[in-house]
């Protein structure tokens, strides 16, 4: 379970997250929507400790992410993250991309790591591309590679930061399908997304962010048809 309490984040004097309170249960799929600059990416970075916070707390399975004694690298193996840019390691094959972290972070043997990598690549539909370098994969394939790379650490949570925003429109579907598959398998997911169809169909809850504040959160039906906040309605009217 992820527990966020009164989270405040500043970049210098810029107040980016203004007191976020949010719980994400095991097995839940939460979509986070909102205008660009509203603090959605920053929220994910604060959850896995890529950004320090100035006030409040984030707990993952009871462990305080930002506490001094926390082994953040170990904690991050629980929190897979997929970014807008897929960031494949260009010098490694698909298999090596996925096998690297299990090997060096988890200390798996070379063979074990490669088995895990092959399994996860097959899982995301790249079983035929094991020995291919990222440069000869499409954007959608590279994003699925990034998903496999995160899954290979056997995370309990997956954080997606606009995983489809940088893709050509015709490649969005394959990545969304992969995310849908993970959701069906019961993965706990926080998905920052502009894909309203995905948010409506796949998520258990949708959170709307506006200028660093979580304006509204609730089941998709509620957010999409009977939003309480004026900001939410305006935002949804514009993206449709």
């Amino acid at each position, binding site marked *: 379970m992820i527990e966020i309490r009164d989270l405040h984040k500043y970049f210098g004097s810029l107040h980016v997250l203004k007191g976020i309170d949010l719980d994400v249960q095991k097995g839940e799929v939460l979509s986070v929507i909102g205008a660009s600059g509203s603090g959605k990416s920053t929220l994910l970075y604060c959850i896995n400790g890529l950004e320090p916070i100035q006030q409040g707390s984030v707990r993952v399975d009871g462990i305080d992410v930002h506490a001094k004694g926390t082994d953040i690298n170990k904690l991050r193996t629980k929190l897979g*993250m997929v970014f807008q840019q897929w960031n494949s390691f260009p010098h490694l094959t698909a298999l090596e991309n996925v096998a690297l972290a299990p090997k060096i972070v988890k200390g798996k043997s070379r063979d074990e790591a490669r088995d895990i990598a092959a399994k996860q690549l097959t899982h995301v539909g790249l079983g035929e591309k094991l020995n291919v370098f990222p440069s000869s994969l499409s954007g959608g394939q590279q994003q699925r590679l990034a998903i496999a790379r995160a899954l290979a650490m056997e995370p309990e949570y997956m954080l997606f930061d606009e995983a489809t925003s940088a893709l050509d429109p015709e490649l969005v579907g394959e990545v969304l399908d992969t995310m849908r598959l993970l959701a069906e398998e019961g993965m706990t997911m926080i998905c920052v997304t502009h894909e309203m169809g995905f948010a409506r169909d796949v998520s258990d809850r949708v959170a709307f962010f506006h200028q660093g504040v979580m304006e509204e959160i609730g089941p998709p039906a509620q957010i999409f048809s009977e939003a309480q906040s004026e900001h939410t309605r305006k935002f949804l009217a514009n993206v449709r």
Partner: protein
Amino acid sequence: MQPTVSFFSGFNINDLWFLGEAALRTLWISVLSISIGTVIGVVCGWLLYEGKLAATLTLAPVLDIFRSVPLIIQLVLFYNFAPIVGLNLDPFASGVVILSIYTAALVANVARGGIEAVGDPMRRAARSLGMTYWQDLRYVVFPIGGRAVFPAWVGVALGVMKDSALVSVLGYVELLKASQILITRTQEPFLILTIAGAFYFALSYPISRYSASLEKRWAQ
């Protein structure tokens, strides 16, 4: 063969051997200086990238000095002033010290560029997998950044190899100094400089070819 006879004699096969040996000395002082300088330079480049205030304030100007003062001046100054502070170094050692620092000054910028080439998003992705700062450097930044600036580094290395000729002013008998000795004796500058040039080419060419083939392999 009498020494008096050979004093003004023409170029002979032994001289070729003499030049070959000198070429090996050029190779040796270059390999040593480039290796040491690259290691120091990479560390300096990393310090510059991390941009800790002290590094930027002290290291950057020092590197600038070594990069901009002509190598020949650095060599002569160092060779003549080092004994004053109690460092009695022979021409070879003095050459290695200055060439290494000079290489380091050039490589520092190349290395910083390499780290910058990797970019924050890539590094955040690595860290998000649970890699430590050092694992990220070792397994992500070094191979990716290294490939990005490899051609620039080869350029530095080949340049330093040619510049190692300047160590001849200290009396170290590398390729250029050996050529000068032979020219004085044989009075055949064109022949000997051509041969010396061919030796330099023979040292550089395999490196260029090999690096080109590496780049090609990485480009796939």
